[in-house]
């Protein structure tokens, strides 16, 4: 039996009017997931750094959680890229043979650097805990206790000194790492914006504002997810109302969320107004995409549901838990839609500017390709950081007990 040859992209692209023969939506749902996930990483890290660098004491409780959650997200962040590659077994070439004129080539270095910084910061913060645990577990019976003792012993990396001076040094180093981490986190995500913003062939993507928009919306989404997940965990643990201390930490975090949200909305609107006002040659086709083809997903889902409604909710005092949960969920949805509208919206029109392409997300997979590039592939990616976090939290408890 001869299998029909399937062209990559043809299974989810529907063409309308004149589209070049080779044009398809090559960057699908996984490329939407990629900036969404790295954005969450960067945002979660920024939230944790607000405490470690700027000493916002009220954020202490949520900051530790955010750092570990950022680490869990970091493991999952490159996976969308891997699932998207047509030759995933050659992925290591990005690390070993980077071609430096390409924005993607920075990935290997920036990701590794950021990974190293976050790992080191976690180590310096939790070194004391590792030592205490390893010492406390000495003499305890049972193979699990022994395994835990050995694990914590290895995690100390042989640094057993937890005297006052040593811990003070740890704190100093933590602060330095957290401060260096902020620009690196911004770079990690800013370059993801640069990947799109520098594609001169694509009129929708090409704007120098793209990296900035990505960084600010990254902070928005990361903080929102930390608040949402942290609140849900605490609500679940306390079985009823949220403890006051936790609620205060969350309320403080929402203030920072609001600041970043206002920035994000302003930048995105500036971009759109500027395009309309200057009305370059490409504006005709962009206008058709923005105001007609993608109207619902841009104006209703992204701006109205994802930006305006949560903004109003967060501005109305007092901030109840219900309001916070609703607003952060909507914000996450809005940022996801923003990534969707950039990635998929940017390919919604032909480079001939004489036709359109519609994306039909594969829901039920019938091949590896339609799994990877479909709804299930995206859900797999979303689930992974929570599993990583669950596993990490067994080793490094991030949630403080009273």
């Amino acid at each position: 039996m001869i299998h029909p040859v399937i062209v990559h992209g043809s299974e989810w692209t529907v063409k309308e009017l004149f589209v070049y023969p080779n044009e398809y939506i090559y960057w699908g749902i996984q490329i939407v997931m990629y900036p969404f996930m790295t954005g969450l990483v960067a945002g979660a890290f920024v939230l944790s750094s607000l405490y470690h660098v700027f000493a916002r004491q009220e954020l202490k409780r949520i900051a530790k959680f955010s750092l570990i959650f950022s680490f869990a997200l970091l493991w999952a962040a490159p996976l969308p890229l891997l699932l998207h590659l047509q030759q995933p077994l050659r992925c290591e070439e990005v690390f070993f043979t980077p071609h430096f004129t390409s924005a993607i080539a920075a990935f290997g270095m920036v990701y590794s650097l950021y990974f190293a910084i976050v790992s080191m910061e976690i180590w310096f913060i939790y070194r004391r805990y590792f030592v205490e645990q390893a010492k406390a577990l000495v003499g305890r019976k049972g193979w699990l206790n022994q395994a835990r003792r050995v694990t914590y012993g290895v995690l100390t990396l042989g640094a057993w000194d937890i005297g006052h001076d040593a811990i003070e040094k740890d704190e100093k180093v933590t602060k330095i790492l957290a401060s260096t981490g902020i620009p690196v986190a911004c770079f990690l995500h800013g370059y993801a914006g640069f990947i799109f913003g520098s594609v001169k062939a694509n009129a929708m993507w090409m704007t120098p504002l793209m990296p900035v928009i990505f960084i600010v919306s990254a902070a928005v989404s990361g903080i929102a997810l930390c608040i949402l997940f942290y609140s849900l965990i605490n609500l679940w643990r306390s079985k009823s109302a949220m403890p006051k201390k936790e609620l205060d930490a969350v309320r403080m975090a929402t203030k920072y969320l609001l600041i970043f949200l206002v920035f994000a909305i302003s930048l995105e609107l500036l971009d759109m107004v500027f395009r309309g006002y200057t009305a370059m040659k490409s504006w005709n086709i962009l206008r058709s995409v923005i105001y007609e083809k993608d109207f619902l997903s841009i104006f209703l889902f992204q701006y109205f549901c994802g930006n305006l409604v949560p903004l109003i909710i967060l501005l109305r005092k007092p901030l109840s838990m219900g309001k916070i949960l609703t607003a952060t969920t909507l914000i996450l949805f809005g940022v996801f839609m923003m990534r969707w509208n950039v990635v998929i919206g940017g390919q919604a029109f032909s480079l001939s500017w004489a036709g359109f392409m519609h994306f039909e997300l594969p829901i039920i997979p019938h091949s590896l390709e339609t799994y990877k590039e479909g709804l299930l592939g995206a859900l797999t990616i979303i689930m992974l950081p929570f599993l990583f976090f669950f596993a990490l939290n067994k080793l490094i408890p991030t949630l403080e007990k009273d």
Partner: protein
Amino acid sequence: MENNEPVDQERRKFIKTVCMGVAAVALSPAAFKILGPSEALAFVQNTKRRWVFLVDTNKCIGCGFCVKACKQENEIAYDAPVSRTWVERYVVKKDGDTLIDSPKAGRDGFIDAAIEGQAVPPSEIAKGFFVPKLCNQCENPPCVQVCPVGATYQIKEGIVMVDRKWCIGCGYCIEACPYSARFFNPELKVAEKCNFCYHRTVKGLKPACVQNCPVGARQIGNIKDPDDPVTKIVLNERVSVLKEEYGTDPQAYYLGLDRSVR
């Protein structure tokens, strides 16, 4: 005296070995010519050849032989809708509307008078023509710039090539090409593009599409050779290129290009 002989032989052997050793050490650097930077650059860049393409849209009849020949020559899945080269049909109506299509990349010609699903009465048509397209082998290729692993590169004759054993299949080059000349090879799962049939030109043959064009609408030439017929046309006649505003410096020249061409 009887004992001297073996000592002499030992000495002779030693001297012989030393001489050979010195000769070997002296010879090995001499075996390689060490190039200075300018010499190395000249070796890589200075060539007497820079391939360019010339398309005469006035001549094209939209038969699709070029697409057929290209697909067969380069082993691109025949029924897949993607192609290294394709032909577009333009119908400009008297009211100014432009209709464009390229069914199956123009492989089977344009046998259906309906375009974009519309049957346009001949009385409403102001002009109609065909435009063959292919990779422009840009002097400043954005696809090469964005490849994260250097799997696509420009060779000294100006052709942009893809290393099929190195490409990771990220699709960045496909997104970066303003001409949509690239696609994923449906069988090999790597980036695919026209390379002016490099395997043919390197042997002195013409690319498959040029060879098979029945009307001579497609030509390849060496722009560095002033006596090349293509060079003469590019230099002396009014030619244009596609999407010049992207700064890619495309090297596929067109004769009779209409402003409606995308």
